[in-house]
């Protein structure tokens, strides 16, 4: 196993573990909005680690291009989808569960 492959493998593994953490967050966090944050762990770093790790292990240029393209697309669409989700939820009158002080701030400001 070449050093590049080793690094790639580690990156992929770490990415996978991050994804698990994101999944745990998805389960543990109390409301939809907080869960969105947990999901974004996967959307960003986990995805990047896995895909870039794979790119390090790849043999052909074409594969690397495709991987990078996948990553770019994932990174480009992930936040858009998350934003759209949050906005839709707010529009659909799903109230976020806020920390008490923050809630007071919010009620005083509006």
């Amino acid at each position, binding site marked *: 196993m070449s050093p590049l492959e080793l690094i790639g493998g580690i990156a992929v593994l770490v990415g996978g573990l991050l994804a698990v953490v994101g999944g745990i967050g998805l389960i543990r966090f109390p409301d939809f909005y907080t869960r969105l944050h947990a999901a974004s762990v996967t959307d960003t770093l986990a995805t990047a680690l896995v895909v870039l790790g794979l790119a390090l292990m790849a043999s052909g240029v074409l594969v690397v291009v495709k991987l990078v*393209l996948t990553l770019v697309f994932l990174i*480009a669409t992930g936040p*858009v989808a998350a934003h*759209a989700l949050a*906005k839709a939820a707010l529009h659909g009158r799903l109230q976020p569960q806020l920390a008490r002080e923050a809630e007071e701030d919010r009620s005083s400001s509006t």
Partner: protein
Amino acid sequence: MEHHLVLRVAAKLLIPPILLFALYVQFHGDFGPGGGFQAGVIFGAGCILYGVVFGVDNLQRVVPAGVVRVLSAAGVLLYAGVGVWSLLSGGNYLDYGVLAADRVHGQHLGIMLVELGVGTTVSAVMIGLFYGFTSLRP
């Protein structure tokens, strides 16, 4: 007022590369069967993304429903027609080798046309389905 600014801008950025990627897949199906499906799905998805974000009326302006209907049919006809062409050229159904003097060339040509038919139909059907959905308001 500008309710989905993010979506709108993102869509504008993404759609051209998506469409091009569809065409890339269409013509680079590794010269094997299968490319047309993916390409059609991608192209259709790109158009649908446009329709979802900018409204079905805008999409209808770009790809009118009648065109979608014709394209979906034309794709199937192309697919089946290449097969018949190969029948008429003395081969078996979908035996593209007979389509050109050189068997390899014939294969390439046949597959490309067939895949083009598949891709056309798949994307047209996807768009047609989207039109169908949006016309059915619950």
